[in-house]
């Protein structure tokens, strides 16, 4: 894991002092809310419906146990005893007092964390595959690249007042678990035939009101050119991105309106000019950052653990949890555990301070002091020995975090919605809770199989509804909450934006509508092995429309 050196420590500490001064100037009235807004946003402080909200960065979703423990401490001391893990691998605290925030930031700094650039029109926290450094299908760990990007983009003087926010995601395997193609810049680390590392570069992806899949601008970019190329993209975007309309200000619109080829000319010309300059990455510096992410000291273990097999036979609930929430590790004898923060009827992604403490303990004891936050709003224990799985499960069970539903229909992504968010047009958490209850039966869920259900409380799409196999978007229709359904979206390497299926449903109808969609799938799938998305891709929307809107069938 990355560790701060003197430079980072000094940087973050002086940044906290700087923000403390800004908060004091706001409180004294020297800064108006208008002047303060961009400054607080660059430090992760939002104004929500009822209170300030602090969004803390978890760079590329990786954190250690003392960091997790500190998040629990902050929830306990400054908030209402819980935090919300987000689709951008961050954590949000919903109820801090403005005057406390400098203290919170100081606490965070003590464990090498910060809230810099988690909001505002700047380069946001860089995200990455949550299975980085553990996944069996990995070509290279994406985190060293994400860390270098994090550093370069931190208080980049030129790119703090962009037309709009800017999100970068990095993956290191051909299977995309980070919705990389839905980011302003998406990077895929890969190897060429000569065995050298480089990147495939996508630009102009995004969700929000105009969802777009990123376009490949470079099939191959040598690793040493990563920063120069990103700087060239950002410079062109900063100069030419639209500023007349904030809904058209993301780089996806610039790519769309200018055309990839024309835009690429500008980007490549700027890149050509700067690529042999100061941003060229020396091999040894990349290696120095990569060294922080060197594989843990794994023991030499057989691929099968007899104790585990026996425990699965003895305990059916455990066996099911292993089936769903545990996946293969690159290292024999180890596994990756998903802790689903999706208990029946709970708000997706919320964890209490006590739960965070348990997670911290488990990370420390069983996972080489490492944890991850996934964009699916779960927590991952990336390196668990097979023989420890039962102990981990037992501890999770006791803490109410042993939901065996990873990847199933109740592993729902949902944004905060109208319960918290000032921009919301509808509630999303209650809808998630209702669906979670409706499909709570594990047999039924397992029968349905892999299905990604994602809910946003407005068109901004923080809940990724566009890329849900089933997506739900809450809108406001004359003062009433209405839920629009999209089908067939996907945030993986076969990226797709879901199609709107028809008129929306009221809050009372939406549960039945989802059930109808699921029933239609179950009736029409070729076999148990054909997942929802495959069936949808084979059949298209019509059978689902027919089932949802039967009266229209004959029209």
């Amino acid at each position, binding site marked *: 894991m990355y560790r701060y*050196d003197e*430079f980072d420590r000094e940087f973050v500490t002086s940044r906290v002092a*700087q923000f403390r001064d800004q908060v004091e100037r706001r409180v004294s009235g020297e800064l108006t809310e208008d002047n303060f807004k961009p400054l607080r946003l660059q430090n992760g402080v939002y104004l929500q419906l009822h209170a300030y909200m602090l969004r803390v960065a978890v760079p590329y979703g990786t954190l250690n146990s003392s960091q997790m423990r500190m998040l629990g401490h902050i929830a306990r001391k400054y908030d209402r005893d819980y935090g919300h893990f987000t689709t951008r691998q961050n954590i949000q605290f919903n109820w801090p007092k403005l005057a406390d925030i400098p203290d919170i930031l100081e606490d965070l700094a003590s464990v090498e964390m910060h809230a810099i650039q988690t909001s505002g029109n700047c380069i946001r926290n860089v995200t990455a595959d949550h299975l980085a450094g553990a996944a069996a299908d990995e070509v290279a760990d994406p985190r060293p690249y994400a860390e270098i990007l994090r550093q370069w983009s*931190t208080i980049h*003087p030129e790119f703090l007042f962009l037309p709009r926010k800017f999100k970068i995601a990095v993956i290191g395997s051909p299977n995309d678990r980070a919705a990389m193609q839905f980011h302003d810049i998406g990077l895929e680390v890969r190897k060429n035939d000569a065995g050298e590392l480089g990147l495939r570069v996508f630009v102009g992806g995004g969700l929000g009101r105009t969802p777009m899949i990123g376009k490949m601008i470079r099939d191959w970019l040598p690793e040493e050119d990563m*920063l120069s190329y990103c700087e060239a993209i950002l410079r062109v975007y*900063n100069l030419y991105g639209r500023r007349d309309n904030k809904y058209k200000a993301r780089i996806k619109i610039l790519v769309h309106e200018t055309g990839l080829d024309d835009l690429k000319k500008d980007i490549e010309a700027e890149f050509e000019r700067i690529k042999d300059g100061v941003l060229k990455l020396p091999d*040894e510096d990349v290696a*120095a950052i990569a060294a922080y992410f060197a594989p843990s000291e794994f023991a030499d273990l057989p691929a099968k653990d007899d104790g585990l097999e026996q425990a699965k036979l003895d305990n059916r609930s455990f066996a099911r949890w292993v089936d769903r929430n545990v996946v293969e590790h690159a290292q024999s004898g180890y596994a990756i555990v998903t802790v689903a923060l999706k208990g029946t009827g709970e708000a997706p992604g919320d964890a209490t301070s006590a739960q965070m403490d348990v997670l911290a303990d488990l990370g420390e004891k069983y996972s080489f002091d490492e944890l991850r936050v996934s964009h699916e709003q779960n927590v991952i224990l990336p390196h668990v020995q097979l023989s420890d799985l039962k102990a981990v499960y037992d501890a999770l069970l006791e803490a109410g975090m042993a939901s065996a539903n990873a990847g199933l229909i109740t592993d729902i992504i949902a944004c905060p919605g109208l319960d918290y968010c000032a921009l919301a047009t509808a509630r999303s958490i209650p809808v998630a809770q209702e669906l979670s209850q409706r499909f709570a039966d594990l047999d039924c869920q397992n029968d349905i199989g892999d299905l990604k259900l994602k809910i946003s409380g407005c068109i901004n799409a923080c809940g990724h509804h566009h890329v849900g196999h089933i997506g739900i978007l809450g809108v406001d229709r004359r003062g009433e909450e209405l839920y629009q359904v999209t089908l067939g979206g996907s945030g993986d390497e076969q990226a797709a934006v879901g199609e709107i299926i028809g008129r929306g449903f009221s809050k009372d109808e939406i549960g039945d509508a989802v059930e109808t969609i699921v029933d239609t799938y179950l009736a029409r799938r070729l076999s148990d092995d054909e997942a929802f998305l495959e069936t949808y891709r084979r059949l298209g929307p019509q059978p689902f429309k027919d089932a949802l809107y039967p009266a229209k069938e004959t029209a």
Partner: protein
Amino acid sequence: MTTLFIDGAVAEDPWVSIDGEQPVPEAEDVIVSLALFEAQRHALLTRNEGRLGVYLEADDQIDAIADDLGKIDLVALDFPSFADGRAFSKARLLRDRHGFAGEIRATGDVRIDQVQHMRRSGFNALAVHHQPTVDSLMEIKDAGLNLFYQPAIEGAEARSSSGGRSWARRAL
């Protein structure tokens, strides 16, 4: 009231801004709008006395004056609002792409919290209206940090002594 700071110190402004129809004085240092520059380009570039500055609004691009930068002594870049960051990239391009060594002046909504970013992007002059910013700059409080995670304009900062990071910088 506008206070001009050059290289961090309060300075008298020898420049006259000419924007409308009035004739360009022959012997004075003038800052003209891009429209005026384009309309009277030849005359402006061949004056015998008096230096030439061009004022670019946020929508104007550097390309419009790039070929003539050798004869231009000052470029003023406008921040219509502090949230409009285009001028940062323009200053960068002036210094790094075009090697422009003259004065780059920030005008418009110039605030203390952006001052360090302006300097790092290539501005060496600030025309400030905002009184708290004037006061802070008088106290030499520029609200910035001394450590940087990325190189800015060339020569402005030292390589960080922190090993293994070619991109990090430290204030001189």
